[in-house]
């Protein structure tokens, strides 16, 4: 059923008894042309674009939990394309363009809200760095504006402009950035893929990968063996666990990142705002809760929960930026497992096995990349050629010295 205002009206008249599940719960077939390991945002988007753009519909998405239980439901919902480097910027801008048309495209209300992302700067040097990044964005055709202190003060009067250590001098703004309702992204892609024939199989954990003559023939799962023509990994924080099944060692460590939401408040933060003197980013959801986060906890972890020390650190950074937060009560916090790569940038590539594909290393920037990641991965799986915006995300870039290190901290994953 196509969703529309009319369908809502009609179903209301019929007592809302006509709604169908948004996707099926199929029994896995014996064989698929493509199996995608991981039913997160990226895996579902890949299946959706494989079916819609590349006509490959004999596809299964295997998810060990339920749809939306992983990082796609565990982030701070921010979208932006304010990247500096050549290898990243066109890719994230493709993602932004896909976000802009996404709801019409997959006929699902994802609450895409381009409310603007502001990165605050606190020193002359930081202003210069942001100017450089803004110019790089504009050269790539992406919108960027450098705001001075008074303009920011008019927009966000509650910030601590005269903080003794980190006075706010201004901000780099990307107006087209914003937030998206993350669960709806998973559901919308799942529904769109399912309606085109993709099987979404939940509670189906991959436990092994079967190979013959140097090719993958299928996967062992908690629901038995399933054969495939091509196998596409999109397992996020568990990427190295799955890669281990084919003796592939990845330049990735798994770390836990926490996020938080406060009690509902009257509207006061209209944009997404990030602190330039510490790691803190905040927006206000349509329900009124402040959604915010900070750094990863800093140690390898597969536990979807974090540590109190990081909670304290995030709260301190938040209060340094917005003193009024000091009496806000936190409603919930949660943790997600991030596949932290050695240069802070992702991998969308083929592997040493002919019909095995890899999508990993998203660090904690995966959510905003969901549409482009799915699109580019589907492009790679369908035609064996990387999409033109994703040619730099190679698995061998580390050994070739072609890192994409936005932050410039080197191969220390817990610093990215």
């Amino acid at each position: 059923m196509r969703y529309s205002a009319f369908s809502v009206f009609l179903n209301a008249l019929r007592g809302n008894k006509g709604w169908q599940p948004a996707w099926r719960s199929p029994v896995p077939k014996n064989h698929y042309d493509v199996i995608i390991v991981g039913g997160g945002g990226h895996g579902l988007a890949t299946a959706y674009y494989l079916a819609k753009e590349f006509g490959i519909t004999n596809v299964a998405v295997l998810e060990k939990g339920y749809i939306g239980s992983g990082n796609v439901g565990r982030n701070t919902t921010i979208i932006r394309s304010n990247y500096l480097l050549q290898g990243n910027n066109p890719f994230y801008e493709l993602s932004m363009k896909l976000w802009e048309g996404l709801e019409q495209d997959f006929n699902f209300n994802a609450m895409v809200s381009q409310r603007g992302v502001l990165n605050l700067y606190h020193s002359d040097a930081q202003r210069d760095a942001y100017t450089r990044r803004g110019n790089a964005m504009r050269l790539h055709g992406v919108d960027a504006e450098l705001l001075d202190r008074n303009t920011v003060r008019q927009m966000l009067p509650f910030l601590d402009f005269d903080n003794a250590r980190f006075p706010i001098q201004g901000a780099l703004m990307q107006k087209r950035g914003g937030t998206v309702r993350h669960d709806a992204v998973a559901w919308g892609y799942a529904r769109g893929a399912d309606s085109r024939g993709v099987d979404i199989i939940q509670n189906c954990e991959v436990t092994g990968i079967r190979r013959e003559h140097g090719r993958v023939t299928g996967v062992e799962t908690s629901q038995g063996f399933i054969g495939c023509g091509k196998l596409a990994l999109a397992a996020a924080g568990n990427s190295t666990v799955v890669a281990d099944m084919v003796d592939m060692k990845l330049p990735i460590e798994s770390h836990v990142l926490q996020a938080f939401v406060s009690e509902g408040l009257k509207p006061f933060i209209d944009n997404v705002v990030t602190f330039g003197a510490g790691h803190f980013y905040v927006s206000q959801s349509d329900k009124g809760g402040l959604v915010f986060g900070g750094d990863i906890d800093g140690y390898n972890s597969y536990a979807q929960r974090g540590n109190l020390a990081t909670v304290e650190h995030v709260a301190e950074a938040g209060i340094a930026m917005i003193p009024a937060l000091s009496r806000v009560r936190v409603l919930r916090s949660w943790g997600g497992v991030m596949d932290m790569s050695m240069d802070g940038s992702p991998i969308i590539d083929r592997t040493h096995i002919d019909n095995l594909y890899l999508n990993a290393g998203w660090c904690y920037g995966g959510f905003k990349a969901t549409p482009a990641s799915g699109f580019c991965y589907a492009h790679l799986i369908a035609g064996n050629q990387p999409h033109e915006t994703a040619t730099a995300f190679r698995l061998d870039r580390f050994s070739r010295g072609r890192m994409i290190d936005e932050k410039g901290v080197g191969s220390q994953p817990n610093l990215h």
Partner: protein
Amino acid sequence: MASLIACPHCGPRPKEEFTVKGDAAIARPAADAGEDAWYAYVYLRDNPRGRHKEYWHHTSGCRRWLVVERDTVTHVVYAVLDASAQGETA
């Protein structure tokens, strides 16, 4: 993560005193070991879901390098040794 790390020199200390360096299995190759060995040393890490040995530096304590063996799912700490006791230094 456990809140306390039992430093062999200082006793149980809050884990915020420590800096995590990561995988303790990597060993620095010889200078002429070749590109593959150096690539592996710089970029590849063990990332097990379960028991893992890591270098931790007691930055705000004795400033010794330690090897912490712990579980990356349950966060249980099994053992903490001085790195030199393992015959290695970071």
